[in-house]
């Protein structure tokens, strides 16, 4: 499997942004299943006292999956910081697939990343395995 430069960069640095957030104001959401080969969890801390409205103050992820999945989850966690906590990825799953040059058959893994992000932002903690 050949990986794009962006995929290699975020996959290599993923451990830097992987982890959990603890404490008050942290929302957690997860999607997928290790047994099925892909599982992603996001922890999001939202600053609701920001002058210009609620913002993502911090985001962390955990992921079990292929390099594309891990790279995309790391990218989402990085890009989300400072943004309005919307129940949508900074870019659509299709756009992310093109950005990371993922094979089309891996789109389903990006949808798991998206579902985990939505679950975290909505604070419903969906399908968490932990």
């Amino acid at each position, binding site marked *: *499997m050949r*990986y794009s430069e962006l995929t290699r960069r975020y*996959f290599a640095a*993923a*451990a830097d942004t*992987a*982890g*959990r*957030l*603890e404490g008050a104001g942290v929302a957690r959401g997860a999607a997928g299943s*290790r*047994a099925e*080969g*892909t*599982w992603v*969890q996001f922890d999001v801390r939202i600053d609701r006292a920001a002058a210009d409205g609620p913002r993502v103050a911090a985001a*962390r992820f*955990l*992921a*079990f*999956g*292929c*390099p594309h999945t*891990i790279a995309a989850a790391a990218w989402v966690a990085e890009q989300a910081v400072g943004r309005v906590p919307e129940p949508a990825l900074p870019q659509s799953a299709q756009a992310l697939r093109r950005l990371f040059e993922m094979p089309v058959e891996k789109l389903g893994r990006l949808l798991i990343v998206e579902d985990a992000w939505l679950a975290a932002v909505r604070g419903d903690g969906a399908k968490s395995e*932990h």
Partner: protein
Amino acid sequence: MSAPAYLDCAATTPVDPRVAAEMAACLTADGVFGNPSSGGHVYGARAREAVEAARVRAAAAVGACAEDLLFTSGATEADNLAVFGVARHARARGRHIVTARTEHKAVLDPCRELERRGWQVTYLQPGRDGIVEAAQVEAALRADTVLVSIMHVNNEIGVIQDIGAIAEVCARHGGARLHVDAAQSTGKCGVDFAACGADLMSLSAHKTYGPKGVGALLLARRRGLQIEPLQFGGGQERGLRSGTVATHQVVGMAAALSIAAAEQSADSRRARELQQRLWEGLAAQGGVVRNGSEACGVAQILNVSFQDVEGESLLASVAAEIAVSTGSACASATDEASYVLRALGRDARLAESSLRFGLGRFTTALDIERAIAAVAAALARLRRIGGVCDTAS
């Protein structure tokens, strides 16, 4: 950055410089470049002599007679010729074949094609250690069984089957010919075609420091074995494998097999020490499962599954340091987890998170330490990313 340590010798090996030197002598105008089928001049005659000398030398390296050996393009062609060749020749007598679920695709796919054409195939389930018992073969034999095909050394897990015991079962049956895929055997364990009792045996050159593109099928003609050819047009190889014999390739194969036979004991002793060190280093990481029989396996193959990591990510994480094979679907040519590991009872996750380490003649202790360090670092990192090691930040 230095090149990754090559630990994929079960996939292929570099050509031994001694082999390359013999091959080079057959290629240019001052060498043995003639067509071995051209009997009317000295160039062809010399090539013919080189081919026949290679046949004698290659056969001797595996305990066979020269007249038993057909050169092919590789073990895949040899397997196809064995399975289809026997099945077609014996079709009036029976249309049942026995093989194992852990065979190479070069045997399984021809068997499936024969099923589509009306043959029946029994696929034996090996034990969790990968061993196919002779009693299983015996129980599967039927009056209409014409072929049993069991590989000697499994290419993924390195398990050595007891071919002698299986050959005895087939001999008692009387009608079932035994084909053995020995592509992984030469140089890794002793190969003696005459003594093992097999009727047919497939060989490869490139697994044993020979060139790609050449192999052989051994046929026990003295036991009256007959097969039908798959390709026609020239009648080379006694009419069973038409096509100009590639002199440099067969000379290379003969040299490689000869060296392998002479150095197998020393190579295997050294590989066993390296394999033991590798296994100890990997096992120390925890969550590690060894695939295949430790007691009945070759020293040059170690197959390990790693818990709590995904296979493609594991391979990508170690790729800069070591070149290995994996059971991960995304990293292999086919879209499935290792069917061999699945047949041993491994679940899909463990089958996909496996690495096959193929040790060889040129593997060093430094390569092994590099592999252990690379895998240890990858496991720690991927397990942390996966939340297996609690790392609240």
